[in-house]
């Protein structure tokens, strides 16, 4: 029997990027906020210090920072006619667990989505027409976000200054800036910090890409290029290119994370209480089903509690936002047979995987000295930056030389034809380890009627609740897009001096057995129509207006870029509306 706790104004389910952002804004506005985190508390000192933090076996291979999938896994299948099985080793995507969430082990690749991304359907209809869209795939269910880039610009700006993004603007108020990305959405001012120093692999890519007429620029990075104090007064340090960023926490106070940029202020706020090792199992609704009364959770000792709250924020990893909604009976679950229902609909992933460029032995790449966002890249093939009229697909990818550490257990490139083990393999690794550049293709994934999330009928978690089931394969559109760009990138690889260039590009079927991207998106998407969205433009649930589902689960389809900064922007946009409108008059912020 659950013990009922003292009521609070708001509770967050998860304390990562969105959970700490929401809690900070609301605690500062005077609300009593409780943060419930299923993982452990952890801080830069002492938890993230070396040599412990540089344990590649523990963190990269055994995934020590990721969701404990002996307790809660995700089941997976490629299509509805298959039986899904639980993913017991995270490989393809890496949901974080613990204070700070995935925003601790992220790489710091810090992009804004583009203007067209937010009006995706409208933009494509206007530029190419319905007939063209139909030719890309009848199953595609792309839609607008219900919010525009212009509305979000101030919040992108706040997010970048909060976490100290280091980059070079490419477009300030419509003026193209030399050295930046000419395709980026217009920004009001420069990044808070100058770009990171260019790596040698970046310099090789820059020369080759510029020679082919593309527009290379430094990847915006939340590994900082210099010491920085954020608007909350928190001091950050400069990145030292230690090579342990993705899958790791930063030991140097040099990566934007809740620990470095939000939590030290939040945790001192008397209106805030953090509770770690607390597993939320559902949001409780009143008898009408239209109002949440709080959440039910289990603590580390297995005790069950009911935490009453006026507002509930679902601030977990995107997949877990969707699962929480399904477990709580909020919103109509999506049915792929009828196309009706919304929760679980428009789950999207990302298309990744670029070529390996094998170089001459006299070129020492030294990629072990690197950061999480060290790229030199081009956006010429991003989003709708190029004319798709005769291509038969929508979407695009950025392309860049982004090597995040070349750590010894994970990184041993060998050219095709090399044996997978034994003496010849060892010789090939020794020959190629320091003379290979991986080029990344990274981009959009379109939503399809066939891809969705729901509750698994068979497999349950440690609390006896159904696991989330993922039904996903890349739409043909995404394959055509990725393969088209793969051809272009092979040319860049050759211009980089590649003796052997192994072509990249996404293939079907999607497999969860190798790393691709942790940018799982959608499933509880935002929009302006309750028939095709779970939340409105403020990420407020249509059906239960005192529940907000924050984060990338709200993306109607996935963007070209790594998505954290865009998550920050839509979250800050939502919080502004909550503080300025909702708190004064609780209820739906948008009337459908």
């Amino acid at each position, binding site marked *: 029997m659950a013990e009922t706790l003292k009521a609070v104004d708001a509770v967050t389910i998860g304390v990562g990027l969105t959970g700490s952002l929401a809690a900070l804004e609301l605690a500062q506005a005077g609300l009593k906020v409780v943060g419930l985190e299923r993982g452990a508390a952890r801080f830069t*000192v002492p938890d993230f210090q070396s040599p412990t933090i540089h344990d590649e076996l523990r963190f990269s291979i055994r995934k020590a920072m990721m969701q404990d999938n002996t307790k809660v896994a995700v089941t997976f299948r490629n299509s509805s006619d298959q039986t899904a099985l639980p993913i017991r080793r995270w490989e393809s995507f890496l949901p974080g667990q613990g204070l700070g969430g995935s925003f601790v082990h992220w790489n710091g690749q810090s992009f804004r989505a583009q203007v067209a991304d937010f009006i995706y359907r409208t933009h494509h209809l206007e530029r190419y027409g319905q007939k063209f869209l139909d030719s890309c795939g009848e199953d595609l269910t792309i839609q607008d976000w219900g919010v525009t880039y212009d509305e979000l610009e101030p919040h992108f700006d706040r997010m970048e200054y909060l976490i100290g993004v280091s980059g070079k603007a490419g477009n300030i108020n419509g003026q193209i800036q030399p050295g930046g990305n000419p395709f980026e959405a217009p920004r009001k001012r420069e990044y808070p910090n100058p770009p990171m120093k260019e790596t040698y692999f970046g310099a090789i890519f820059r020369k080759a890409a510029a020679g082919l007429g593309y527009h290379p620029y430094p990847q915006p990075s939340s590994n900082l290029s210099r010491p920085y104090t954020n608007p909350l007064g928190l*001091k950050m*340090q400069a990145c030292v290119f230690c090579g342990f960023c993705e899958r790791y926490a930063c030991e140097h106070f040099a990566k934007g994370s809740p620990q470095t940029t939000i939590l030290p202020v939040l945790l001192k706020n008397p209106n805030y209480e953090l509770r770690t090792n607390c597993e939320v199992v559902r949001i409780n609704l009143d008898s009408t089903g239209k109002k949440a009364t709080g959440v039910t959770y289990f603590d580390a000792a297995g005790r069950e509690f009911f935490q009453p709250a006026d507002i509930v924020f679902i601030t977990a990893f995107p997949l877990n936002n969707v699962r929480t909604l399904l477990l709580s009976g909020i919103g109509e679950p999506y049915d792929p047979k009828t196309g009706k229902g919304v929760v679980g609909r428009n789950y999207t992933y990302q298309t990744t995987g670029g070529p390996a460029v094998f170089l001459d032995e006299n070129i020492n790449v*030294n990629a072990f000295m690197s950061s999480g966002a060290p790229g030199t890249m081009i956006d010429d093939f991003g989003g709708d930056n190029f004319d798709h009229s005769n291509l038969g697909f929508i979407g695009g990818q950025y392309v860049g030389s982004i090597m995040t550490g070349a750590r010894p257990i994970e990184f041993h490139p060998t050219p095709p034809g090399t044996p997978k083990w034994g003496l010849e393999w060892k010789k090939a690794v020794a020959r190629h380890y320091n003379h290979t550049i991986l080029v990344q293709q990274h981009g959009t994934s379109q939503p399809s009627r066939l891809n969705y999330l729901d509750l698994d009928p068979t497999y349950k978690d440690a609390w006896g609740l159904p696991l989330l089931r993922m039904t996903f394969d890349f739409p043909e559109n995404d394959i055509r897009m990725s393969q088209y760009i793969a051809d272009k990138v092979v040319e860049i690889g050759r211009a980089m001096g590649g003796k052997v260039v192994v072509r990249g590009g996404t293939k079907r079927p999607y497999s969860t057995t190798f790393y691709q991207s942790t940018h799982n998106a959608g499933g509880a998407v935002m929009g302006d129509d309750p028939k095709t969205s779970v939340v409105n433009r403020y990420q407020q649930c249509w059906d239960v207006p005192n529940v907000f589902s924050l984060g990338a689960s709200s993306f109607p389809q996935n963007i070209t870029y790594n998505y954290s900064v865009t998550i920050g922007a839509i979250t800050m946009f939502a919080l502004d509306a909550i503080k300025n409108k909702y708190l004064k008059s609780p209820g739906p912020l948008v009337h459908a």
Partner: protein
Amino acid sequence: MMNSTPWLIAAIVAGSSLSAAVLAQSASDARPPDPKRGATIAAQGTPSGAPGCAQCHAFNGASDGSGAFPRIAGQSAHYLAKELHDFGSGVRNNAVMSPIARAMTPDDIADVAAYYASLHAPVLPLPPPEPALVKKGEQLARFGNDEKRIQACNNCHGAGGTGEPPTIPYLAGQYSNYIATELKMWQRGYRKNSPNQMAAVSKLLSDDDIAAVAAYYQQILGSGELANSQ
């Protein structure tokens, strides 16, 4: 390893600006460093007027223990050469070392750096520091300070302060007065190399913090042990 890449990247990683001297050095890397000639320079100085290094640093690189002069035995050749170039350019401004460095040719610098890097000098028997100070120093060196947002020194200087050659010097066995003085040089802006790392970190440290880490690193190696980052 004859191209300039390792130098370039190493310098970038150290967070330092590339001095023209370093670039020139790497570009004309035609002859390998000669540690024997380096030993001669250490003992006798150079014809252009640089005094013998051994006068202050001792022929075995252990210096005299006062901390007025750092221990340089077994320090990485890359690091020693880079510091000499920085002394010469004024990025590291020092009334004693800057004129000496300016009197040395790039080959002189490469040779003495190679010589001292090759040495294994014993640690001098010095009076033990205050245990409480050492304990506080160990905390900072190994774990840092979350409230002040100071990362552990060992993150870069290696477990036990043994250095991360070629770019990051060892601190284990280094003289406490020397470590403390350099941290204050960074705090006050006399030492301008590593502006984004050491200068930033030094400003987070109190005088007590500095005394503590300096005391801690000096006593890590016992009397007679060999300090060598390589």
